[in-house]
């Protein structure tokens, strides 16, 4: 009997063998039960892997993936947005030039800047410490004109340090700071957004060393910043989102 190669055995379960080759493999398997058992296990792996991952094909495709466009277009859009933002602010024209689409990009930058400025603070990282959380939340809620909540991130290892009020291009900004056991800090930036209420998907921006996940929910923009890995930050961002949208 002709010796069947390892490659032919794999081809037998994966691909199309010619009639002749197929017959050769089959007669080999008939007299080599160990190989037959091995191939049976491999074919079963194929079936199990497919039943595990084929369901992904039926999931709706996230809008963010359908929205991917060539970079040149996006660079142009970003440049146009910054330009328009400059005009908008320079002329002090309220809400005319600032279209909703371009606000989030500036949101990420502003949040990253606030993170870089306040998170290294040792003595004065916040205005109101976590010990006065109730006061902090009611004060910031009053200033932003909405009922805010400070997300509870302790299950993820991040305790609330406290918060402060900041000034942003759209008025008051609530800034919450969290810290883990090693002193790694995350900040949540919440600001009112101009224009029609709307919702966006999570977006990600890497602003130098600071990773930012940001989104718009109704009239408010949220940005979570930290010098952590994207995956790690995403996990926290999801929890923040869920807690703010129960």
């Amino acid at each position, binding site marked *: 009997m002709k010796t069947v190669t*390892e*490659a032919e055995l*794999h*081809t037998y379960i*994966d*691909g199309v063998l010619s009639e002749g080759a197929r017959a050769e493999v089959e007669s080999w398997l008939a007299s080599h039960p160990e190989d037959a*058992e*091995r191939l*049976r*296990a*491999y*074919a*079963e*792996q*194929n*079936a*199990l*892997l*497919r*039943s*595990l*991952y*084929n369901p*992904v*094909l039926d*999931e709706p*495709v*996230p809008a*963010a*993936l*359908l929205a*991917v*466009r*060539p*970079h*040149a277009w996006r660079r142009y859009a970003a440049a146009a947005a910054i330009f328009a933002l400059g005009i908008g602010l320079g002329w002090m024209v309220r809400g005319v030039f600032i279209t909703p689409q371009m606000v989030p990009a500036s949101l990420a930058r502003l949040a990253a800047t606030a993170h870089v400025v306040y998170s290294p603070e040792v003595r004065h990282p916040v205005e109101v410490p976590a010990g006065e959380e109730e006061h902090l939340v009611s004060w910031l809620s009053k200033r932003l004109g909405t009922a805010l909540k400070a997300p509870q991130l302790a299950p993820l290892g991040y305790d609330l340090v406290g918060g402060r009020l900041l000034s942003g291009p759209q008025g008051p900004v609530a800034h919450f700071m969290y810290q883990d056991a090693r002193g790694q800090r995350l900040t949540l930036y919440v600001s009112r957004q101009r224009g029609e209420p709307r919702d966006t998907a999570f977006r*990600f921006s890497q602003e130098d060393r600071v990773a930012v996940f940001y989104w718009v929910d109704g009239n408010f923009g949220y940005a979570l910043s930290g010098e952590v*890995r*994207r*995956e790690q930050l*995403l996990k926290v961002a*999801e929890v923040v989102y869920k807690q703010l949208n129960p």
Partner: protein
Amino acid sequence: MDRRLIIEHIPRLRRYARALVGDRYVADDLVQDTLERAWNKFYLWRPGSDLRAWLFTIMHNVFVNQARRRRYEIEQAMDELPAVAVRATQGDQLELQDVDRVLRSLSAEQREVVLLVAVEQLTYEEVSCALDIPIGTVMSRLSRARERMRQLLGGQTVMPLKVVK
């Protein structure tokens, strides 16, 4: 250039990415980075050639670059773990989670080959092109990965085998 050409491949790119990295969101990020790269390099794609294989090539490159940049320490550590058989947890039925866990225990190189062959059903030649490795390397990775999975799964009979095309 027709966006629909690329868009219709997104579900399969998502399936492969999910199987490759495990986490849903990390996987979709990988798809997003792949699509961005594909758009920027679309002029390099020869109309008439296999767009899907081309997209898998791009995803492979993005994945490898990210892995290099982020140094997937966990993955490296897992490669060095001794093979420990996964016990079926309920009776003799292997659970899909066990298969997934075993898949994660493969090196990224082996996992790519197994998934492209088993789930994406690319031919060995297509895998060789997509990963830019000789076909002999495809076969040896495939063979090692399958044998490792078989051993980790205990080599036991698990489910009635259906022939799935």
